[in-house]
């Protein structure tokens, strides 16, 4: 069940340090179907700390976005690795705000595109990204360990 809270109570902060890692991993493990090792989280948060954001409520992390960026052909390209919001805090635009935060941060480092993958069946995630201007550019079959396929979404910023 979704909690009733005032959106102003949600604070969005850049990722701080490893002390937040347990909570972040807990949220992602409960939401995402694909398992990730701690090295995956560290890969993103150590080198691209400035692109990773948490949504906080009463000092507790309730949502997180993990991103990175690197050179791709002629441009610098941002990549959204993971996005998740605690079940109780869904449908409050938190995920959208986290994505906006990360894309704004990517713009400051001259990214021209942002990409991500999402499960073919995950219509709600796709709807979120479509509202922001993302479009499907590739279909990747058998992408996940479960055998499910994925769409590559992209936005030109």
């Amino acid at each position, binding site marked *: 069940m979704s909690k009733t809270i005032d959106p102003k109570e949600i604070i969005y902060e850049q990722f701080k*340090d*490893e*002390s937040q*890692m347990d909570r972040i991993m807990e949220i992602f493990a409960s939401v995402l179907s694909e*398992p*990730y*090792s*701690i*090295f*995956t989280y*560290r*890969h993103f948060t*150590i*080198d691209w700390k400035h692109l990773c954001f948490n949504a906080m409520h009463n000092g507790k992390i309730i949502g997180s976005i993990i991103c990175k960026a690197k050179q791709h052909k002629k441009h610098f390209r941002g990549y959204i690795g993971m996005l998740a919001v605690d079940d109780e805090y869904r449908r409050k635009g938190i995920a*959208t705000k986290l994505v*906006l935060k990360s*894309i704004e941060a990517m713009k400051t480092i001259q990214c021209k595109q942002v990409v991500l993958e999402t499960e073919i069946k995950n219509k709600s995630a796709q709807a979120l990204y*479509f*509202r*922001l*201007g993302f*479009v*499907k*550019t*590739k*279909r*990747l*079959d*058998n*992408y996940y*360990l*479960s055998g499910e396929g994925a*769409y590559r979404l992209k*936005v*030109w*910023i």
Partner: protein
Amino acid sequence: MSKKNTDQNQETHQEKEIEKEKEKEKEKEKEKEKEKENQKEEKIEKKEQPKSPFNKEIPSDIFDEPKENWEDISKVLSTATSELKIGQMVHKEIFILDMLMTVPDIGVTKMDAGVFRDPNELYSIDQTLGKFPLEKIEADQVLGVMDKLFCAQMTYLMGENIAQTMYSCFYLQYLDKIECDLLKQFCLISLKFCSIVRTLILTSSIHQEGEYFIATNLGYNYMDELDVNQILPIITRYEKRIKKDLKESKKKEKENEKENEKKKEKEKENQKDKENENEKKSEKEKENSKVYLDISIDLTKIDFQTFLKSLLCRIIFQKRIVQYLLVKKTQLSNFKQFLNESLMQLQSIISTNKYCIKNVLGFYTDINRRKISPPAPIKKIELLTFEKATELYQQIGKELLVLCEAPKTLNLKTKNLKFNRLQLSTFFDEFNKKSPNILSRALISLIFFDEDGFYGGNKLRELIMDNVVNYSFVDKSFLNEKPIKQLGEALEEPILKFFLTLCNNRGRSRRNLSNLFENWEIYVQHGTSLDHMIILKKMEKIGLFEKIVRNIPKSTQSNRNLLDNAQLKIALHRPISSWMLDISSEYAIRYIKSGFELDLFSTFEYGSIYWYLSYLYLIKWQSNQAVKTIQSEYRKYELRNEMKSIKKGHDFNTQPSSNKRKGKGKGKGKGKGKGKGRSKQTQKSKLSQIRKKIKQEGNLIQERTTENNFKFLYQLISTALTSSFLAFETIGAITIPENSKIHFASREKIFQRRIASVSKIINSALDYQKFKKANNIGKASAESFFKQAITAFDQALNIQKKLQQKVSQLSENEKLELNVLKKVIFTNKISLKLASDMHSQNKKYTIEPRFDLHKVFPTISVK
């Protein structure tokens, strides 16, 4: 006892005690020395053991020998890590986080396939000895193992790894311990099948498809070093042996039957029923079991002949599936023969599967989970059931039979590259609709294509040059010029790659096309520059260059007249560019269509994408028509030249008709006489024939070929859909993300990016602004869009009817396509009329485009 004696006794006793004490002391000293030595050793050991980098001491029992295979090191870890800061890691010098992303977390059930779920489960092959029979294997177990290995092979073809499929069989891991050599050879040949499949896939055009096939061995041996020509003769020997034994068994059975009949007669005479029955009983008891090739057969469960037949069909099946994969391309008849035999043997396997043991011993898919090498964490899998495995093989068999037949049905020996392209692309499109297995798709590229070109056909290089000739209307000798030849050679690879993309699955095919377009752009530019060279040569040849130069000072009107000149048309025709545009537009259309097939486009994009698609069809259709016109003009040009030469050749013979009647005369010309009249007749008839041909050429240009009609039909449907979606957008029935405040990319940007790769090869100036202008966006009303759409659908329906009238000339696929398109047109017309009416009544509604009927052109339902 005397005092002396007692004293002496006391002394000896004391001495003994002293000695004992001394011995004890010695022992104590020895013990002390031992302790000292032990302490020294301990010290030495302690010195050799790594020092703790931390201040706290390491628990002392850490260096004791472990009692079990697994040791709880939680204490050690917590001690060692207590001084680390948050986020700090202990690692080697070379440490890259990026590479470690694929490493599984040990103990996490989602990632670590080796996590114990049940303490009774087997986790290592070493534990399996004794748990499955290696000697004196029962017949039902042997048959069960053979069928389970077949299931493992099919699971492997479904894209699972070798470690969890073939090597889930313990027999493969204990080959040397198997008593039954036949079973051993069977295991080897079944593994060899997988090895050959892997090689085929890696050498084919679809080798990149890791999502459908795991080619890595994950630390397990495919036995590539084992030559299949060593195993096949052994299998053949067993096959012959079993066949021979089966024959003999049948003979014996017949003989036994005869003997039994004779005995029965004797029994009646001698009245020895009881004795004979006893004899029979004892004989039966003797024949309850049998050992054959180290296999124990329980004859109460399966009779000997049935067992031999069961063995035989399985052996022959494995042999055949290996043989047809090894067949050379030029021996497709052998391929087909072996394939058919394998399908036949499969039926026998299915009918004898009931004799297999129910729970086959010696298989476990997770047995290797701790041994599988990285990078990917291995998920838990199950082998296909026997029913599903047989279904899969039968499906693959059908696909491969289609491939065998194709070189016969397709006329690849023609010199018409365009025709070949059309044939092959149609064939592959149909073939790929049913999502064929990766093995079938690997064999497409290996059967149909080789280094030179198409199977059984002409070399691709020759085909390319021939087609350029057809488009050029110049002397063939001109095409021997170096730059033209070089282009022909250079084009071989990209054109072959265009074909090979058809063998890939849809997603990868689209990605490959996009990559090919980047290179193709360079060839198009090169082709254009060569065209200029050809034009100059042609104009020189027909003396037009001088004409143009002379006419330059004159008005544009006269130049326009000059441009109507057929000769100029032919001369200015750009052969290489137009030929490459034909290919480019075909693959551009394919690329855009694949976007719909893969559901990559959003509804708000449909208007612009269908508009672009309609233009591509128009370009294709127009380029075909232009080439046809030029070809026709060229033929007319040649016919006119022929007429001229006929007329010139008989100029001296032109006399009034009176001369003809007389048959004599003092005319100007020579060669008079009776023959002259007849030569004039032949002249006239020739000239009239040529005039007829010229007229026919004109009619031919007007007629559209079936191919062009289809292109025109697609173009009209695309136009209709453009207007339809623009109408819905105008009304607000389609959500436009651009309208939201938080939107990053405009529709214009999205559209430009979508067509970016195609624009490189089509070289047209189509952009979003042109789309807006062409469709009067922002100005036109929804009503006008509805009207345009319905009109376009009506026009499409007319073309559909024209094609329907010539349905006998269409292929089966074309007929099906035509029927589907008819339904699409009708459904959409009705939906549009309904939507238009509802709009006029200010009623709100939503629309849902559905691609159930046709993958590219949706039916629109109005709700």
